[in-house]
């Protein structure tokens, strides 16, 4: 899965990455913004991309890897077409977020952190997304669903399956 580098389509992505790197090159503290952009371009941060960033910014690869693995926002694994993030913040937890996670795991047949075999869904848990007033909440990509109960899960999944 990590051999994303050498197919024609991704050349364009690397070109974009080069532009981002040039923009931050020599600027102090540029690594994290570059990684954010890189993840937007590639969807995740495979080793090849990390090497490219390290060379481009003239930073040891070990440091890039150290930063990528420190922050949960950065992923070294490709994600599914839709990423479902269940909030496990306090407000959501006391209102039954654990049951939502369980309902999702049952419906999708995967555990938290995994992606379905057909590449449609990835299941993640997130910390508070700031919609605590509607707890428990989950996100699918940019969409937010609040006031959840386990029985609402199948309907949400169905909605994205068709997309």
């Amino acid at each position, binding site marked *: 899965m990590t051999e994303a580098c050498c197919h024609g389509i991704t050349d364009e992505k690397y070109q974009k990455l080069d532009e981002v790197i040039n923009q931050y090159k020599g600027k102090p503290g540029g690594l994290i913004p570059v990684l954010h952009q890189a993840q937007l371009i590639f969807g995740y941060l495979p080793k090849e991309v990390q090497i490219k960033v390290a060379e481009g910014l003239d930073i040891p690869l070990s440091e890039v890897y150290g930063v990528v693995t*420190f*922050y949960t926002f950065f992923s070294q694994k490709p994600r599914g077409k839709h990423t479902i993030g269940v909030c496990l913040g306090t407000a959501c937890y006391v209102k039954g977020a654990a049951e939502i996670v369980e309902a999702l795991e049952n419906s999708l047949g995967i555990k938290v952190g995994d992606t379905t075999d057909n590449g449609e869904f990835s299941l993640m848990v997130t910390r508070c997304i700031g919609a605590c007033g509607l707890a428990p909440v989950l996100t699918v990509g940019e969409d937010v669903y609040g006031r959840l109960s386990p029985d609402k899960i199948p309907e949400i999944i169905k909605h994205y399956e068709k997309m």
Partner: protein
Amino acid sequence: MNLYRAHVLICGGAGCLSSGCKAVLDKFNTELKAHNLQDEINVVETGCIGTCDLGPVMVVYPEGIFYQKVAPEDVTEIIEEHLIKGRYVTRLLYERPASGEQIPFYNEINFFRKQQRIALRNVGLINPEVIEEYIAQDGYLALGKVLSTYTPEQVIQVLKDSGLRGRGGAGFPTGLKWEFTKNAPGDQKYVICNADEGDPGAFMDRSVLEGDPHSVIEAMTIAGYAVGANQGYIYVRAEYPLAVQRLEDAIKKAHEFGMLGENIFGTGFSFDLEIRVGAGAFVCGEETALLASIEGKRGEPRPKPPFPASQGLWGKPTLINNVETFANIPVIINRGADWFKQIGTEKSKGTKVFALAGKVNNTGLVEVPMGTTLREVIFELGGGIPNHKRFKAAQTGGPSGGCLTEKDLDQPMDYESLVAAGSMMGSGGLIVMDEDNCMVDVARFFLEFTQDESCGKCTPCRVGTKRMLEILTKITQGKGEEKDLELLEELATSIKATALCGLGQSAPNPVLSTIRNFRDEYLAHIREKRCPAKVCRALLQYSISSELCKGCGLCARNCPENAISGEPKKPYTIDQEKCIKCGNCLDKCPFNAITLK
């Protein structure tokens, strides 16, 4: 600007967005055009109005009528009845939870009436994307005043006199922090806004950033002038993309208006701002970890001193304040320290914004004077506990704090009294729990959180919290022993004393506080292997009542472990050995024949 006869403020805060306010807004705009009212009635998308669970909400002025749970289908009626004929749409009015009495006016609803909005003064009132609306509310007036008539020392004196303390957690006097930074030697200094808002269950900073970004920009520029910095950074968590977008937009507009950048207001003072987006690490809210993160490194904290005021970003003197702290500052400059200082308690001046969530009727954002009691916040503003359940505890200070109980309800809340009650102010997250929440499980939840977020640099936090979590997990699984409580307390005390940063030092707090307040509940888990709140799965038993069971077999068909058996039309039974306590059967049973003990 056009003169409108009515203004419709539609909340575009995070809560209302997920309840579908965009569709309501679009419908409003098209319908107003269809009725040819677009020049008479002004529709504004605002930041969070505060009552998240009632969304989408809107307020119609000049009368100040509050409508809740508005759907696109309601829009035509609001326009034709209210805006054309002047008759309120009663079915969309707010109802008092206890009595069901309808309250049409925004400022007569307890949730709003009891608030005093300083930090949130513009949130929910102006369109955050229009700088002119901020300026119309005295925006950038304080900056102009400071740059043209105050010396840096005078600015700092006002803050010192006001008694303002940091709203990010520790409550350090803001004026003093500014003074330290100003007096630190060095020609390059920085101002940083901590918008990491790591406390899960808190969203007040988010609402300020999204609902009134210019107030933070204005205050940071004032700070730059006072401490002698020309560059600022706003560190925003990655989970808040809308806040980032609003800030970027606001910074651009402030530049265009000459309120940011070179030679502000022609006074010769220059200040610029950059946004840095976090990447999902709770510890980065801690100021030294935050500095490391802006420098592009792993967000690991370092020992203090040296404090950031003397050695901060890239080793230079750096002022770090929280979003809400900054949001207070323009008002303090405009209205004076004497005005600010009358609000609040002796040692805690001004107001505090709380993010009210959990088991409470009106979830949302409230800003109240320091010294307001927990009872007022939960029962008057918050409208009490839903479903006639009993109040059990409220967590303040997030994973670093502790819980308040029945006995604390009438304590005035300020920095000191919350510490005395075994908790802390924290950033303002206030999570209400009822009788259905298990305090042992809640303590385990917080420990799991801090354990997961521990950066691993120091041993007490990395290993110590892990051991504590193991013990707590054991207790929730019914394998606890009585000596575990002592062990937990011992571990807690040594972790508090030896961890490197605030994360580790405060991680044991929720455990200590729940043991102190709910020892019986711990003991029930340990001695009787019983979870009184019926949360800890391993301690529960599902059973089928032979009287109520009609033998439909639905439970057996839905049991993932085939633990339920029986013959059609006769009572079924559950094999306790096989049961994994998933609760499917209870959810599915149409006759309420399955009980949980």
